C-alpha cells in the first residue's frame, strides 16, 4: 500500500516543483537584470534628496540621513543657464510648446498620408512612398544646414514654429510607414462598402478608419512624444537660447563648468526632464492594451 501512494496515479494537473533549476535560472536572471536597471535610478533619486555635505561623504548607495527637497526646487526654478536663472521651468514650457503642436501635426499628416497611400492609390503612389521611406535612411547631419537655410528664407529660423515644422517633417517617413501598414490590415471590403455607402475621402477617414485605429494612434503618440521630448540636436540647432527645449537646458545646467558641481541639483534636473516620457509610458501603456483589446473586433 505504501508503494501505491508514493507513485501517485497520473491524474489531473502534473505536479510541479517550485524550486527547479529552470525557475532559479529564470528568476535569477530577471532579478539581476532588474537590479541593473534599478540601481542607477536609486542612486539618482537618493542623491537628489541629499545636501551637498552628505554627498561629499561618498556613500552613493545609502539613503539620505536628512531629506531635503531644495535641489529639486533649485533645478526647477533657480538653476542658472547662461543669462537666465529661472531653472528648468523655462525649458519645460518651451518643450511643451514644441511637443504639442509637433505631435498633433505630424500624426495628423502622417495618418492621412498612410490612408491615402493604401486606399486611394494614384499613379506614382508607390514611387512616392518609396521616396518617403528612403528619406528615413538619410542621416540628419546631411540635412541640418540646408534646413537652416530653408527656415531662414521663409523667416522661421530660430522660432518655435520652425522647430515644429522640422519635427513634423522628420517624423513623416516612419509615421507614414506605421499608419500605412496598419491601414493595410483593415479589410479592403470595409473601404469598398463605405464607398458604396456614399462616403468620400474624409468621410471614410473620419468615420471608418479613425475609430478603428486607436491602437496605432497611441503607438504613434508614444513614439513622437518620447522622440520629440528627448530631441537635443534639432532643439539646439533651430532655436535660440531663450527658446531652448528642456533637454538642451538640462545639458547646460549639468555641463556648466564654473563653480561647484551640484550633483544633487543635476540629478533632480535629469529626473525632472525624464518625467514626461516616463509618465507617457505609464499612462499610455494601459491605454495601449485597452486600445488593442478594443481594436480586436473583426467585422
Amino acid at each position, binding site marked *: 500500500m505504501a508503494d501505491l501512494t508514493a507513485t501517485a496515479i497520473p491524474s489531473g494537473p502534473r505536479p510541479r516543483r517550485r524550486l527547479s533549476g529552470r525557475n532559479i535560472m529564470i528568476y535569477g536572471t530577471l532579478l539581476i537584470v532588474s537590479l541593473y536597471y534599478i540601481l542607477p535610478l536609486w542612486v539618482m533619486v537618493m542623491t537628489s534628496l541629499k545636501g551637498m555635505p552628505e554627498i561629499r561623504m561618498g556613500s552613493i548607495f545609502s539613503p539620505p540621513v536628512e531629506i531635503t527637497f531644495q535641489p529639486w526646487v533649485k533645478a526647477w526654478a533657480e538653476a542658472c543657464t547662461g543669462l537666465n536663472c529661472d531653472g528648468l521651468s523655462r525649458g519645460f514650457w518651451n518643450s511643451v510648446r514644441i511637443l504639442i503642436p509637433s505631435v498633433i501635426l505630424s500624426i495628423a499628416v502622417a495618418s492621412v498620408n498612410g490612408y491615402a497611400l493604401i486606399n486611394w492609390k494614384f499613379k506614382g503612389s508607390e514611387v512616392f512612398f518609396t521616396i518617403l521611406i528612403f528619406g528615413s535612411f538619410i542621416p540628419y547631419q546631411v540635412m541640418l544646414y540646408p534646413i537652416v537655410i530653408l527656415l531662414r528664407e521663409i523667416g522661421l529660423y530660430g522660432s518655435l514654429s520652425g522647430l515644429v515644422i522640422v519635427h513634423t517633417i522628420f517624423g513623416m517617413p516612419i509615421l507614414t510607414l506605421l499608419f500605412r501598414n496598419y491601414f493595410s490590415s483593415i479589410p479592403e*471590403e470595409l473601404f*469598398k462598402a463605405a464607398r*458604396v*455607402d*456614399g462616403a468620400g475621402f474624409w468621410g471614410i477617414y473620419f468615420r471608418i478608419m479613425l*475609430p478603428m485605429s486607436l491602437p496605432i494612434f497611441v503607438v504613434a503618440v508614444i513614439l513622437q512624444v518620447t522622440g520629440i521630448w528627448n530631441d537635443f540636436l534639432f532643439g539646439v540647432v533651430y532655436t535660440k537660447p531663450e527658446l531652448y527645449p528642456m533637454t538642451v537646458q538640462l545639458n547646460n545646467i549639468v555641463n556648466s563648468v564654473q563653480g561647484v558641481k551640484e550633483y544633487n541639483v543635476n540629478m533632480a534636473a535629469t529626473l525632472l526632464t525624464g518625467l514626461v516620457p516616463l509618465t507617457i509610458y505609464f499612462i499610455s501603456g494601459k491605454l495601449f492594451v485597452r486600445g488593442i483589446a478594443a481594436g480586436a473586433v473583426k*467585422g
Partner: protein
Amino acid sequence: MTHSIQVKDLTLNFGAVSVLKTMNLDVAEGEFIVLLGPSGCGKSTLLNCLAGLLEPSDGEIWIKGKNVTWAEPSERGIGMVFQSYALYPQMTVRGNLSFGLKNARMPRDEIEKRVARAAEILQIGPLLDRKPAALSGGQRQRVAIGRALVRDVDVFLFDEPLSNLDAKLRSELRVEIKRLHSRLNNTMVYVTHDQIEALTLADRIAVMRGGIIQQLAAPQEIYNRPANLFVAGFIGSPSMNFLPGKTVDGGRAFEFAGNRIGLEGYEGAPGQRDKAILGLRPEHLVMQDTAEPGLTLPATVEIDEPMGADSLVWLKAGGQPVSVRVPVEKRPRAGQEVHLRVDIRHASVFDAGTEERV
C-alpha cells in the same frame, strides 16, 4: 423587356494582365444573374466594375438606361454585399444600416422608416442596438444584406456572400436570398464559385473563365447542354464523364475503345470527327447485366461511395474512369463485370479540338 444592366465591350487590364476581355452582358429587369467560375476567372472583378470600385480600361456600363461608367459607386443605384460582411465594427447594427442614408443626407424619420422595414424583412429587429462583434456569422450577413436593402436600390450585387458561412447556414441563407428576390423583384447579380448556389438561385448563369463568359443561359440549359468542355466539367457534382473517341458512320455512331454506341436520338448533328469526346453525366448511365450492342459499354466496378439516397459507383471502361449514380440498394460488388447503358438523349458530344459541343 427593359435592361437593368448593360455591359458593353468592357475590358479591364491590370498592367499587362487582361482580366476582362471585351465583355458584353445584358441583364433584364428583375433578373437574378449568377456569375460562376473558378477563382481568378474575373467574376469578382466584373462585379467590382459594376459597383464602380474598379475603373475599366475600356467599354461602358449602363444601369437603368443611364451610362454610369464614370459615376461614383454611391450614384449608381446599387447595393453591395461582401463575402467578409464588411460591417463597420465600431457602429451598431442600426448605425451600419443608416450610414449610407446619412451620407445621402436623408431626413431622420425616413431613415428610421427604412431601417425598420429592412429589419422587419430580414428579422434583425432585436439586434439593432448590438455591435457586429456580438453577432453570429449568419446574423452579420443579414445585416450586410440589410445595408443594401435600406438604400432602396434597383440592383443588388452579391460578392460570394455565403462563402464564409458553414454548410447548414449557407443553405438556409440561400433560401432566404431567393425569398428576398421573389419579394423585392430587384435585379440581382451574384458572384459565386459554388455551383449549387448558382443552380438553385439563378434565372440565368454566366459561366466564366479567363475573363470571358463561356456560356450564359438558364441553369437547366447549362446543365443539360453545356456549350463546351469547360462548362460541362465545371457544372455538375460529381462531374461529367468524358470518353475520348471518334464519331463514325457520318456521325451516326460514337466509337470508344473498340465499342460502338449509336447516336440515334442525340439532339445535335456531330458529323464525322476523328477526335471527339462523349460527355455523360453519372445519372445518365444505367448499370445492367446484359450487353446490348450499340447501346451499352462493358465496364468493371472498382469502388463505390454511398451518399445516403444513392451511391456513386466508380468503374473502369476501356481504361477510362467512369462514375455512375445508382440507387443505394443496387450497389454492386467490387470487381463485378457490368454493362453500362447510355442514355444518348442526354449526352453531349464535343469536338476534341475546339472543345465546343457539336
